[in-house]
C-alpha cells in the first residue's frame, strides 16, 4: 500500500502512522459539548466496509498529518490531503 503524501509524493505505507478514523478529527466537539457527544467522537465509529477517510501521520517523512481516502475492502488508496485543509475532498 502506498500513500500519496501531498508534500512528498507516493510513499510506502511503513512511513506512516495510523491515527484512526477522520470523522473524529473533522468535527471536534467544543469543550462545552455534553458527554454523549464526546463519547461519540472518542469511541464510536461508523466503521465502513468500503470507502473511508482516516488520519495518517507521515512519521518518517515530512511529519504532516494527512486525511487519506481509501477502501477498507480492497486496500485501494484514492488520495490524501493535508489535515489542515480538512473539509476539502481528498
Amino acid at each position, binding site marked *: 500500500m502506498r500513500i500519496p503524501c501531498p508534500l512528498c509524493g507516493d510513499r510506502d505505507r511503513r512511513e506512516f502512522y495510523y491515527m484512526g478514523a477522520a470523522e473524529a478529527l473533522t468535527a471536534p466537539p467544543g469543550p462545552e459539548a455534553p458527554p454523549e457527544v464526546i463519547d461519540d467522537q472518542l*469511541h*464510536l465509529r461508523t*466503521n465502513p466496509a468500503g470507502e473511508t477517510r482516516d488520519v495518517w501521520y507521515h512519521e518518517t517523512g515530512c511529519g504532516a498529518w494527512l486525511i487519506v481516502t481509501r477502501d477498507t475492502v480492497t486496500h485501494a488508496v484514492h488520495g490524501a490531503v493535508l489535515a489542515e485543509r480538512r473539509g476539502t475532498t481528498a
Partner: protein
Amino acid sequence: MAFSGWRILREGLTGNKGWGPLWRTPEPRKAYDALIIGGGGHGLSTAYYLAKNHGMTRIAVLERGYLGGGNVGRNTTIVRANYFLPGNQEFYSHSLKLWEGMEADLNFNAMHSQRGLINLFHSDGQRDAFARRGNAMINQGDDAILLDREGVRELLPYLDFDNHRFPVYGGLLHPRGGTARHDAVAWGYARGADRLGVDLIQNCEVTGFTIAGGKVTGVETTRGPIAAPMVAMVVAGRSGQLAAKAGMRLPIESHVLQAFVTEGLKPVIDHVVSFGMGHFYISQSDKGGLVFGGDIDFYSSYAQRGNLPMMEHVMEAGMSLMPMIGKAKVLRSWGGIMDMTPDGSPIIDKTPVEGLFVDAGWNYGGFKAVPASGWCLAHLMATGDSHPVAARFRLDRFREGVLLDEEGTGAQHNLH
C-alpha cells in the same frame, strides 16, 4: 448419535457406513423465541447454553455463510486465563474452566491441549510486571509459575537467549494455557445445539431489523423475514455494519489480523510461546505445522487478507527469537476481521433497543472466550441480568469512564 472409541472401532470394521451429518439443515420457521445472528464460536455456544442451561429450544442461529467460516475457523487457537484486570480475570477464568469440561459435555473431541503457555520477558521491569500478573492469576485461582532464564532454557532450548535487543530474562508459565482445534469447537457447539432442537440456518444473511416502539420484533434476511422478541448480534468483525442496520454506532473499528502456518514438521515446539516485545507468538499444531502470528495490520480493514509489511515484521520477529524456524517453509497465510474496541475488552450487553443484545468487541482474543461468552450471553438473554463474571462488559462503559484497558495503551481502537 454419540461418539466413542468403541463406535470408531465398530464403524471401522463395518466400512464407516454408519456416520451421518452432524446437524440438520432445517428451513427457517416464521417465528422463534430468540434469534442469534452469527454462526461463529460465540453464536453457536450462545445457542447451546440457551437451550441447555435455560431450556429455550425454539431458537435459531442465522449465519450468512457456513457455520464456523468466520474468525472461529481462522484463529491461532490459543486458550488461556492470564488476565490481570478485575472484570477480565473472572470471565476468562470461568471460560477456561468451561473449556476443561467442554469436550465431555459436548461429546466432541475439540483437541483441547493444555500444553502450557510461556510469556517471555526481557528486562527487570518486565519481570516485575509479569510477577505481578502471575500473582493476580494465582489470586484468581488459576495457575502461574515465574521461570528464570534457566527455567525457560529447560523448556525452550531453541530460543536465542542472547539476542542483543531482547535477551531472554525469563518467562511466565501458565501451565493450563494451550490450544484447541478451532473448527472442532464450532462443530461441537453446533452439534450440541442441534441435538437440543436449535435450528442452525446457513446461507441466511440478516439484512435489517424490524423495530416497533423501541422494541425489536424480528429481522429481515435473505431467506425472508423471521419474527422473534429477542435477537442477539454476535457477528465479530461485522458488528459495526450489522448494528448500523438497527440505527446504532458501536465503539468498534474492524482491523485485519494475519496468521501463518508452515509445512508439517516433526514435533519441535511443545508449548505456546509468546514474544510480546517482538509482536510474535507461536505453537505447533497436531498436524505438525508451526502456527504463528503477530499484531494486527494497524489500520481499519475488512480485506480478510493482510498486508506485506506486517508479514515481514512477523517473520523478522520469529527469526530473531528462534533462528531455527528460518528452515521451515511457510505454507499459507490468511487474515480475519477483528472487532477492536477502544479498551481492548469485549461487550456482552443489552442495547438501547429492547430485546436486542450485542456480543462483540473480542479483538484478537475471542477464541478462548467462546464457552464463557455463550454462557454469559445466554444468561443475560434468559434472565435479563448480566452474569456476574461478565458484569463489566458494558456497552456504555466508555461513556461512563469505566474502561477495561488490559494493556494500558489508551482509548484508540488499533492499540490493543
